[in-house]
């Protein structure tokens, strides 16, 4: 293997990893507040991709209108998801909440299957993303470079919201204790809705970028990226937003590098992340950046 190929794979890994990171942020935010794995989070990738396709194909909007609209639509879907599937179960046992989340995930996937059909749709890829440029002898699709940059911009914006605004302060409070937060005059349900809005919008951005990278959209496209993003969130330390992005980078890099270095293992690529998950849970359940998880009552 030459240095060029290695560098090429490194860039691919960072690009894939930042997508995982972007989706992982949503998992980690919802987990931080509700202590719930939002199983339907991955399916929001699919929702966003279809919304973007329909924006371009059906309403013939230019992509720079259609994509933000799709992100906004998916953000609202996130709020609907919370109101429909999770809010009625705030005081229910945890297992009920999780089952509801799994049900919501299957409902989204199969609704898409019924309404849109199972045949994969091609994603309209604007020419400016598909362009291939030469850098130091490497042939790189510009998208591969845009993805990590956009991820870092989103991350910076999110960190600003969480640590520098009142809403962010309320979110941090809600992630520690609902009751006390309520006593401080904060509408916790609104804060949860905002969390879902932000998390789902980021998942939507991730989904659209995923579809730009792999332009085949089908009702089940979100399942595997969703699971891997969750693993990235655990790897980084669940509840920690910077950790989620770091976990995403590590997972994406690891996945690409294992396949690049040992091509015989390429069939096992999807198993790799689960092995990582098991190892993390065995040896460092709090992840790289995480603090010990406390039960919230």
């Amino acid at each position, binding site marked *: 293997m030459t240095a060029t190929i290695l560098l090429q794979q490194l860039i691919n890994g960072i690009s894939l990893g930042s997508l995982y990171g972007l989706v992982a942020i949503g998992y980690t935010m919802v987990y931080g507040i509700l202590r719930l794995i939002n199983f339907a989070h991955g399916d929001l990738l699919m929702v966003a991709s279809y919304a973007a396709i329909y924006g371009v194909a059906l309403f013939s909007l230019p992509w720079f209108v259609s994509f933000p609209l799709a992100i906004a639509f998916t953000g609202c879907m996130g709020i609907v998801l919370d109101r429909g599937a999770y809010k009625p*179960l705030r005081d229910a046992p945890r*297992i009920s909440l999780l089952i509801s989340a799994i049900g919501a995930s299957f409902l989204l996937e199969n609704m898409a299957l019924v309404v849109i059909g199972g045949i994969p749709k091609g994603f309209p890829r604007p020419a400016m993303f598909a362009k291939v440029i030469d850098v130091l002898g490497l042939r790189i699709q510009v998208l591969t470079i845009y993805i990590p940059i956009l991820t870092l911009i989103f991350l910076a914006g999110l960190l600003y919201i969480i640590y520098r605004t009142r809403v962010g302060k309320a979110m941090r409070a809600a992630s520690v204790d609902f009751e006390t937060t309520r006593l401080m005059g904060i509408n916790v349900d609104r804060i949860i809705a905002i969390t879902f809005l932000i998390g789902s919008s980021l998942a939507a951005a991730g989904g659209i970028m995923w579809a730009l990278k792999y332009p085949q959209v089908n009702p089940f496209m979100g399942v595997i990226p969703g699971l891997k993003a969750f693993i990235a969130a655990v790897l980084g330390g669940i509840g920690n937003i910077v950790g989620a992005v770091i976990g995403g980078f590590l997972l994406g890099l690891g996945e690409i590098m294992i396949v690049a270095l040992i091509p015989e293992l390429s069939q096992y690529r999807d198993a790799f992340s689960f092995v990582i998950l098991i190892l993390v*849970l065995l040896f460092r359940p709090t992840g790289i950046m995480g603090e010990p998880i406390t039960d919230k009552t």
Partner: protein
Amino acid sequence: MAKSQRHLLLNLAGILLVFLVLLLFERHGSLYQVRILNNMAIFITLAVSYNLVNGICGLLHLGPNAFITIGAYTSALLTMTANEKMMNFIIEPLIWPLSVVHAPFVLSLLAGGLLASLFAFLISFPVLRVRGDYLAIVTLGFGEVVRVLCNAFQSVTNGPLGLKGLSPYTNLWWTWGVAIFTIAVTTKLVNSSYGRAMKAIREDETAARAMGIDPFKHLLLAFLVSAFFSGVAGGLLAHLITTISPTLFTFFFTFNLLIIIVVGGLGSTTGAVLGAALFAWGGEALRVVESPIDLGFLRIPGIPGMRMVIFSIILMGVIIFARRGMMGRSEFSWDALWARLHRPAR
């Protein structure tokens, strides 16, 4: 007559009744009816054993499909003759000891169950260290890993091609025999001190620990028993449909089992049985919504996936509005039936 003796007699009478009904269907029922009855019994076995971990112990385990896969492959590889194996493994030959061993059906089922239990034992160390959402994801991941391995280990599982042309050994007597055996063993276990300890762990693990209960030991027991019966049911299923491939046992399968036990009532064996029977029958009845409907003047084409939409809505509806399901946590008992029949007239 002592109460326990009377119950035993009533239970035996109940089983006899089931067998008479089965005999009736075997003699006079259509192939389709027999098929549904077989499915029903296999779902009962799976749901009762799944409920042992999810309902009784309160762990959200999402990987029974992995144990079903292991059981199905093990049992299939044991009953196939050397010749059949040669015909199946065209891309890469089956590795040595497996290519010649051959076992009768009953031994293959046992082997399937035992191997599933062995795998359950191996993954129990990472799995039972965690609870709640983490446990759900790790078991889900295990299911995915098993599927990936089934695709990759061509020289053992024949990869994506799967195994074809298995002998259809499974019949009503096998499926219902196993189902009744599973119910009997699970009920015995749940009503023993082990079962009470499992329920104590479900309600409050810290309190259970303070009472001197070792959570790992008890959860492991439930996990192994559940995996064993899932494996056996996998073997039955393989010899019922006679073709298995890695795509057969995906997370969808687990999702169906989850619906069954939630609708039946998490934590009730009776509920799992009722849920499974309802699912096997209702799943067939609901095929209507996926097949084309011809109204003479209007033709509605079939909508694939509609059944899963309905199932998802049922699952969410039950969990949000009727969390106790059909049975809650109560069980069928002869005494309760007796009391109900002899309720004074109002």
